């Protein structure tokens, strides 16, 4: 029998990731415009620490997913929607790996090692190089804009299924909504 819903763990990881990524993204947008201050150093560190957490979490999610097949898409979808849904999920996972990785590399190139919560040093994978650091910053920013656009599509699709099609697409990942329907 195929499950109708995601496992509780998958649901927990999904929403934890959602909170973490949206929070880290918002902090990232806000912090770059700040004037240099102790607060700026602190908020940058927290952004990086959250990014490292997200980087670890995405592998945890993938490992869980490898061992627990997600429920199939709702029946009766047009073929293009199935392809779009799977493609979008793959891209989101790809960016959930690429974005923290680009941040880590950018920090190394800029000469600021990432030390998780000020305790666990991540190795610098690149030597200090200001031009490369600026290039990686641009890459990091545009990967994030790409992620934001894909996320908007992901949310819009989920809402469309819930509100217009009135199917189980969203409730599979948000069982709280089941009772209200």
């Amino acid at each position, binding site marked *: 029998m195929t499950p109708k819903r995601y496992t509780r763990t998958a649901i927990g990881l999904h929403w934890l990731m959602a909170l973490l990524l949206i929070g880290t993204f918002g902090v990232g947008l806000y912090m770059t415009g700040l004037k240099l201050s102790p607060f700026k*150093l602190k908020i940058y*560190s927290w952004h990086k620490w959250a990014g490292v957490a997200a980087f670890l979490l995405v592998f945890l999610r993938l490992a869980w997913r490898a061992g627990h097949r997600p429920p199939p898409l709702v029946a009766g979808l047009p073929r293009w929607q199935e392809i779009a849904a799977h493609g979008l999920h793959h891209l989101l996972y790809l960016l959930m790996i690429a974005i923290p990785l680009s941040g880590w590399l950018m920090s190394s190139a800029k000469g600021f090692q990432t*030390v998780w919560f000020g305790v666990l040093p991540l190795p610098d994978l690149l030597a*200090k190089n200001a031009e490369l650091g600026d290039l990686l910053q641009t890459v990091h920013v545009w990967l994030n804009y790409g992620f934001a656009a894909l996320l908007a599509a992901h949310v819009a699709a989920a809402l469309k299924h819930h509100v217009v099609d009135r199917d189980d697409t969203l409730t599979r990942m948000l069982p709280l909504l089941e009772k209200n329907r």
Partner: protein
Amino acid sequence: MFKRHPATRSTRSRTLLSAALAAVCLGAAGSATAVEFGQVQAEKSTLTFVSKQMGVAVDGKFRKFATTLAFDPAKPTQGSARLDLDMASIDAGSKDANDEVVGKAWFNVKEHPQASFVSTSVKALGGDRYEAAGKLTIKGKVQDVKAPFTFRQDGGNGIFDGYFTLKRLDFAIGDGAWSDTSAVANEVQIKFHVVAAARK
């Protein structure tokens, strides 16, 4: 550093003997060719520092500084050194930081364009290790510092490597909001590498 294993009687006496021989030889060499190192090679010398931001070590350096020194390893206590730093030549690790640290809260380079270290005494610590004591002046504030260093000869050059740790707030470096040491640590390690040729 390393503790030596207690030497057996025979090796100890041999060690003593060779030390005595070495002393005689050194003494002879010293009196014949006393060399004083003092022609500083600025392009081979570096003055770097490590600050800690949010627990992360960040490297910095001074691009321009002048060193005058006189040091004869046979007469270390007569050695002396003076460093004059051009504070505008600081590289604190990033463009943001460089723009910030020349300002009033940090080095106030406009009013204090120079910092200096002037030795008051040098003593031998044994082996190739020595210690220079002196007055460090930054931002108009003077503090006594002690800087251990090693000296070795490489061809006709003398190479001095040493470091010391200062507390930035002793010099009001980064005051106001920046005196928050949880963002930038109070301790800053200063490292110097000076190459000086023998004076002829």
